[in-house]
């Protein structure tokens, strides 16, 4: 099951792209220089996303969820924490903590399906479903382990 606490970090995925407040010329940054964080960002590399204070200009605070037609659903029961999905996710949307796959960041996932393709388990621990599918529905119909075809 996805870790809902991680997904609920306050300053993330809240704004649709293009829905920002349009401020006047007197309020935009000098030289169009954007800061990624609020406050001192020293050692940001050692902080997990939920520990960081992102600025409103960091795309982490925006969402591309509306791009998705299909979504990957994660079934923790089949997962072996191989982290294939983590390393190949092009949208930084696999939430892994302490070598464990916890779930999908649906604010940033575009539904490309790469994670499902690279998942090596049997049955797969990630499968694509239509965007509107409830998680419970998806998980309840999860396929059984398939026997290897004889070569």
């Amino acid at each position, binding site marked *: 099951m996805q870790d809902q606490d991680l997904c609920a970090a306050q300053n993330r995925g809240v704004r649709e*792209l293009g829905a920002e407040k349009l401020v006047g010329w007197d309020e935009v940054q000098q030289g169009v220089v954007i800061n*990624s964080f609020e406050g001192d960002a020293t050692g940001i*590399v050692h902080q997990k996303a939920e520990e960081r204070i992102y600025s409103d200009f960091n795309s982490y605070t925006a969402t591309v969820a509306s791009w998705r037609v299909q979504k990957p659903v994660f079934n923790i029961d089949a997962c072996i924490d191989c982290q294939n999905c983590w390393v190949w996710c092009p*949208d*930084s949307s696999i939430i892994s903590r302490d070598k464990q796959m916890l779930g999908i960041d649906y604010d*940033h996932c575009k539904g490309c399906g*790469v994670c*499902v*393709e690279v998942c090596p388990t049997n049955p797969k621990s990630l499968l694509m479903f239509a965007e509107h599918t409830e998680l419970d529905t998806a998980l309840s119909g999860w396929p059984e382990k398939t026997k290897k075809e004889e070569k």
Partner: protein
Amino acid sequence: MAITSIKNLKEFSTNNDRFEGAHLLCPGCAHSMIVRELMNCTDDNLVISTNTGCLEVSTAVYPYTSWDTSWIHIGFENAATAISGAEAMYKARKRKGTLKDPNAPVKFVAFGGDGSTYDIGFQWLSGAMERGHDFTYICLDNENYANTGGQRSSSTPVGATTTTAQAGSHSYGKKEKKKDIVSIMAAHGAPYVAQLAPNKWKSMAQGFQKALGTEGPCFINTVSACTTEWRFDPKDTIHITDLATDSLMFPIYEIIEGHELNILYRPKNVIPVEEYLAAQGRYRHLFKPEHKHVIESIQKEIDQKWEMLQRREEARI
């Protein structure tokens, strides 16, 4: 914990992302797989420059940035020079003692697509390599100008169709050979040059770390499968890249100090290039009977190149 070696993927996955989501790259784009891996394989501070291209127009569209490190984009051609300037300023300020934190480790990295690397930014890249700045240049090679809708670049391989080298009743697509950027960069005498691929994540991470840890100008060409212009399903990015490396269309190797060549991946079962070509829309026309000879000549080129790489590796010179 300093990120010094990456033994396995589980260990690698404990690193925190410094390349953020909600960028505007296409679903399934390999660019961000490569960029994420570069940024995740080090915990040093990074100063990054990026040429105009897919990566740039997708990661810094006001009012958003997807970069958690200092980043600059000037033009289509000059990321190598922008990073040269930043690196020179670092050296000057370190000597003069005006850096805020003089002990903070910092690495300088430039990204460019094949359009900006092989074509419009070629001179700027060559200049920066010759001057010996301490930086790593990473080419995200998707073999076309994808940002502007798929025009041919000098990286586009023979037989691929692009909007400006189209396949048609009188053409099988691009006729000119792909420029051998890796050899050209090695000929600059660069201390580390490599061609890497994101499907082989470990050799890619190790190559990135080697380049970042090597003083002087390093160059890495990475194959970046382009779902939009190569025409394959976004979910298949890694599969297509597997075909690229296992058909030896994209051999994975490094060249140290301009001469010492090491092959970093030898496919157990080399697949015919036909399989790689057949998986992509940009090569579909080659399977017409009149263009079959093109596939044969592509295979021949691959075989010759692989032979050459092996011989050079054996020669140890």
